[in-house]
């Protein structure tokens, strides 16, 4: 438990990470670094999309399953890991480490 917290904090401490949300299966954020309304919105909206994505993946091959869904948008990247009982959502701002 503490480890998990630690990892989460480490992730959140990354400069480019805008925020993380842990939502339950209903789309209600349980733990989030965003403010509540935004988190709720993210969770709610993404829930359906991931369900659809998961359905697609499994339709093609039922033994397969969706692990992570990444949505790259103009200014950020949203990563969602769906599970049976929760969603883990991570939003990262685009920031590339330029090769020197």
């Amino acid at each position, binding site marked *: *438990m503490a*480890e*998990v*917290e630690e*990892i*989460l904090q*480490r*992730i959140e401490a*990354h400069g*480019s*990470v805008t925020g993380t949300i*842990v939502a*339950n*299966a*209903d789309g209600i954020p*349980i*733990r989030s670094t965003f403010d509540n309304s935004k988190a709720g919105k993210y969770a709610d909206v993404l829930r359906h999309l991931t*369900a659809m994505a*998961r*359905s697609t993946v*499994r*339709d*093609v091959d*039922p*033994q397969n*399953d969706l*692990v*992570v869904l*990444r949505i*790259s948008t*103009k200014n950020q*990247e949203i*990563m969602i*890991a769906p*599970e*049976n*009982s*929760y969603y*883990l959502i*991570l939003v*990262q701002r*685009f*920031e*590339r*480490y*330029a*090769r*020197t």
Partner: protein
Amino acid sequence: MKRNSSTLTASSRAMKRSTSGMQRALHSSRYTGSYMGFHSRRGSRMLSESKMGRNFTHRKAIRVLDDDGNDVTPRPLYEPEAKDPHAKPQRNFFEDYYSRWDTSKSSSFSMVPSSGSCRWSSSLPSISNRVLMVSQSGHHLIKLDTSPPLDSVRQAGSHQTPDEIPLDDVLNIYLTETDTIILLDLPSTCMSEEAENAQAVKENNILYIELCNNRLGNDKYVERAMQTFVGAAKHKKVQSEKIVMHDQANIATIWEIFDSFQNEAPKAERACAAEHTLNLSEGPKRTGSFSSISTVGTASTGSSLFAFNMQGGNMSDKPELQAIFESESFQRNLLIMERCLVANIFQPNLAAYRTLPEIKEPVYVMEPDPEMLAQDEEKEEEEVSEEEEEEVGEMAEGVPEVKQEEQPKEEEKEEEEEEEEEEEKEEDAVKPSLELLWIFSCELTKGWNITCMAWNKKNPDLLAVGYGDYRPGKKGLICCWSIKNLSWPERLYHCHSGITAVDFSANNPDKMAVGMHDGTVAIFSVRNRESRTFLTSSIDCKKRHVHPVWHVTWVKQEMTLSEEDVVESVVSVSEDGRVLKWLLCSHGLDGVGMLELRRIQDGIKKAEGNKTKREGILVSTATPGLCLDFQPTDHSIYLAGTSEGVIHKCSVSNNHHYLALYQKHLCPVNHVQWSPFSPDVFLSGSADWTIQLWKEDCLTPAMGFTSIQSPVLSIRWSPLWPSVFAAIKSEQLEIWDLNASMLDPVIVEPAPRGINLTSMLFARGSDCILVGDSSGQVKFYKINDLSVGPGKPVPSLEELVHFPSSSS
């Protein structure tokens, strides 16, 4: 003859006839089929032919005359036999019709139902039959004379032959007569006045009329009316409980079907239980993916754990969060997320490391298609592709810069169908250089001195780094870093003493052997995240090293002659001069002495002919062993470098004596390594500022390399190019390319001020080199523009270096 009771009303015709009448009119054989209007008059109707005949003859005499005296005798449908040719077609028609209709039996005739199929009443008077007399005027009787046809059919049926059918085959159709099928029989209530029993019927009628007349006052006939009670209507209402309806819809996707197959009987109970609990906690129904077919898939343990945790039905957030956190899948997902995150940031560098083209950040004007390199766990074990062509071409300018090539790419690392490079590949006029890709460093490792590094044999992305101080009494740290997560090590182990050597096993890739500064040899398992300490160690062993263990290797050794029994064991060399092989026993590791390194003294020169021979004499004092390397092809031969500067070539089977001595160095030999390409060539680096290149059978080195005047701490061959090797001195990293220059290193990378470089390792699969330093950082460099590369001819060592022929 049966008696019947037909129900007659005053004016209706008798629908049901007496059987007697019927029997006479009908054929003697049994009846088939349905009868219209004859419901209960089945039965054997035996009719004697004589009666038929009588009827026939009788019938023929009948003539009906109407008022005007016209002969309106209805002509029979079926012509009598005298008119046979005329009757035939008609018969055929009927036969066909009824043969079709009654397939099982032979063809038969039946009465063509017509409205007035009448029968003659029997001669027997029957009660309550009222017969309309023919003589009544105004009534036309339609009598259907059906019997003759029957008779004629009966007689003629057997002679039926089908006409010639104009086909090739001559079909024989055999027609036989079946029973007569009566379809409708409406017996009439009239009879002719000239009938036989007309008189009797007349009398009957009269009697009946009299009876009717007498009825009024007669005691025999009493009119009585009855009325039944009509019960009062009762309205009854029933009301049930509200039937609660649930709408449930489901889309039968392929995976749902699959899931339901998965969760059959044995798992049904568990699934049900989980379902119940989950339904308690999560109200509305979901699509199948969340309906708790939680036993399916790899997330099963996690989510079923969760389900059982939730059996309390507690809805508050804290336990839920806790439960989520504790689930395995959450942790795994976190891991993946972190890696994705980091990969996004460091994408160009990782791409360079993995020799893949970089992804350009999406520019809004152009069509964006930035699919990231997904570093999912499933791809951990995949080999890195070796398409260095792209990389070298990219870096052709020699100045590393962010390449702005936008190319669509796949998720897998293997597939690389890129477009052609626009830049030309420049030739060797470009100076090779190093490019810093990234640094493995975190807060925990800051300030530690890196002493050793080792790649995992199975997972090419896993690197073990040993941190330790050379001062006794200081703690040690081992970190296992993964390329996939550049910001945090995967595993962290704290040890009681500084780490001096580390190596991964090949047979059991999760086992890591570690040598420490206090002489302990320990074996760790990196498989489990939770394990914090070593599996076993040599602390309790009597023969353990008491001095720092400078080198640890896993060596495969055949126990038996057969190839299959390849057992791996740990071999270590330490400062006390002993080479020990470690075996796993009940209480930790047990060391088996393989060799003791002894000090060598120069022996007397013996002159044999023109050659001088130096004979080494073993002195009893042990000399510290600093490095060890087993020959890649023959695992029974190994080299041990000592602090005297002498390299012993030893054999596993010989515990006391060396096989050969290589004496050239004047100072401790810090590192020895066999060349991966030429199995009898090895390189040694020593504190006397030199690097010597040896051939196995020659006791003097073939070549020596010097650069700055500083002890060589470590040397490594490049795993890719036979002529490239690297050396670490505390101030700089040198990369030598024998193809390009034998006198100077081609690349020299100085260390940052105040920091000493301490160890180095080549990366597998790509031209990258790792350098560990005294500040706890592992820097990944990419080597660019070596003179050797893909597409160029790769010279072997033998071609480059003229090895002297072996001499004693």
